[in-house]
């Protein structure tokens, strides 16, 4: 077992502390879906292919994250409600480095 703790503020502003498995090749979007924090069909619509931006989130604290790929950067440039701390949850894989990460889900668009 190698789980980390991640704080997620949902679209209603409610905070959740989630136990995130790091050995199941899951990403942040899937973690949010696994905990059913948002209604099905409103997050991770494309299934994590980096195509719909429905898993956009804002990173709230200073935790080392993998760099954005060109694809992620490009998709964010077409998404709505984008801020400087925006990321796509489906592009961030759950690793031990994410211990203590805090994110907020971007509004549905």
């Amino acid at each position: 077992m190698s789980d980390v703790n991640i704080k997620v503020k949902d679209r209603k502003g409610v905070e959740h502390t989630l136990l995130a498995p790091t050995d199941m090749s899951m990403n942040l979007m899937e973690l949010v879906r696994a905990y059913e924090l948002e209604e099905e069909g409103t997050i991770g619509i494309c299934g994590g292919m980096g195509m719909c931006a429905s898993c956009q989130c804002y990173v709230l604290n200073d935790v080392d994250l993998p760099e954005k790929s060109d694809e992620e950067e490009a998709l964010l440039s077409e998404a709505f409600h984008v801020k400087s701390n925006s990321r796509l949850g489906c592009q961030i894989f759950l690793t031990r480095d994410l211990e203590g990460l805090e994110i907020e889900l971007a509004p549905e668009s």
Partner: protein
Amino acid sequence: MISTDILIIGAGPTGLFAVFEAGLLKLKCHLIDALPQPGGQLSELYPKKPIFDIPGYPSVGAQELVDNLMEQIRQFQPGFTLNERAETIEKLDDGTFIVTTDRGTRHHARAVAIAGGLGSFEPRKPELENLEMYEEKGVEYFVRNPELFRGRKIAIAGGGDSALDWSIFLSEIAEEVTLIHRRNEFRGALDSVEKVRELKAQGKIHLLTPAEVTGLKGDGRLEAITIEKEGVSSEKAVDYFIPLFGLTPKLGPIAGWGLEIEKNAIKVNNALDYQTNIEGIYAIGDVNTYPGKLKLILCGFHEATLMCQSVYNRLNPGRKYVLKYTTVSGIDGFDGSRKEAEKAVVQAID
């Protein structure tokens, strides 16, 4: 009016495979889809991506799977109403249904199978004041009829394939095409990017990057857009503004058909036949939900198969039938074709 046995709403893999299973039971199918081509998400979202969990295919391209399904159902001659969204449903006294699309096409069916996946794909709309007011009065989300744009001033916003492709296409017929994108980089096929670069050099496409459309103006119809480029705001006269920010699936009008909805999906009876709370309406594939539901293509195929058996029994009460194997009985197409296994011979060898 189009008439069929099973009306399938959604022409994705599950809907397409349902045509095959229905065909084995001599039931005719017609499909409606909001997209211009069959294939659903596979063709629209990820045609070139491989799928690894189709039994028997270690890897198959999404579009390749759709092409194969189309080939597999060809002899059952399905009808298609494409580029139209199923809007209303009416149950007649004899238990049959009439489904009408947003364009007014009417379909009469003895059973309805909703295989709508995530829903119908709707354009993602930018947050602009009065956007709705100008829809179909200068703001368009699709290029359905290119002639509309002949000799006009067009502004296109977006940074993906469709923004690039439509800019290229419309540069031939429009008076002026301006492509506006928030970044300098575009995300699309290399060919398209090259072509836009070329057309820009020839002065046929005006490129505005990094820039954003921030306002719409006009008295009753779009006359100009406000563009913000690197902190400077300016106005530009246009006849049409086409924002192309991709498509997002919405359950849409189906949500108002009186079906039990849970988690943005349609509740079905999975112990039996994937029928909804309305007798004669089924839901199969990603659009349905039941305890333990998995949104997988292979589960959709299974659900489609059971749905067809149930429709047969419902339409032919008391008429005996037993499942047959295609290997044994072959396939008789509605087009008169027959496919069957080669027969073994019984002969002495001297």
